[in-house]
């Protein structure tokens, strides 16, 4: 498939994530949108990985060019998992204190 298709698909998902972050006020939804954005990037990384492989494999059948891209995706998942565990803990904490998960209540940065 032409790489542009993947790029545009990823951008679309990414921008949907951004719009979600901007529009929604529910902290959990915002968090989910961030996950969505991460996945868009992951998809793009895999697509690029296969694109590099596509050109390299013509010269060398046993090449592993592009495998790093997929490894990066793996590491991103690792980091995302860690992030989610901490982030959700924060949200639980926040809900416990304010009985709300509306981010508009979280304007402590103001002061």
């Amino acid at each position, binding site marked *: *498939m*032409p*790489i*542009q*298709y993947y*790029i545009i*698909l990823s*951008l679309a*998902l990414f*921008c*949907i*994530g*951004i*719009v*979600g972050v*901007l*529009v*929604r*006020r*529910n902290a*959990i*939804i915002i968090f*989910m*949108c961030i*996950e*969505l954005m991460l*996945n868009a990037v*992951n*998809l793009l990384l*895999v697509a690029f*990985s*296969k694109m590099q492989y*596509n050109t390299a*494999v013509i010269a060398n059948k046993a090449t592993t*060019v*592009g*495998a790093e891209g*997929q*490894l990066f*995706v*793996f*590491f991103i*998942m*690792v*980091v*995302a*998992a*860690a*992030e*989610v*565990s*901490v982030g*959700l*803990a924060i*949200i*639980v*904490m926040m809900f*416990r204190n304010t009985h709300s*998960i*509306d981010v508009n209540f979280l304007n402590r940065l103001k002061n």
Partner: protein
Amino acid sequence: MNAIEILFWLLSALAIISAMMVLLSKNPVHSVLWLIAVFFAISGHYILLNAQFLAIVNIIVYAGAIMVLFLFVIMLMNLNKESEPKRNFWRILIGIISGGSLLMILVSLIRQATEINNKNALMESGNIGLIKTLGKLLFSDYVVPFEISSVLFLSAMVGAVVIGKKE
């Protein structure tokens, strides 16, 4: 149009529609379910690209573990009803406009980029996405980052416990 292309378009449409539905659902539980759908669609893409390892991991980690965690938190806080306060129209408008213009600009940028013309991603075949290849790479060249990521997990776990525990 061959099967691959049909599948590509189907999965893409599924991903985008599901992603939109994540935003549009009022009930957080529905949002989570739609997001799982997105992840499945992306995993489908991975399979199309023959990235088998990532496809499986994506479903296990994301759609399985992480989204279950989300669901778990939502259930815990009893948020499965429409609980969000009234939405601000201007806020929505501004968000959509800015997000849309960002998309438009980036897409136009891609369309102008000549370097990636006639470049294709290899579908179906190619063995770099196999567990064997990635595993070899992971435990040889990338063993140090791999170990460090375990430390990251440990610290995240400690952090979550510290934050979540009652005073």
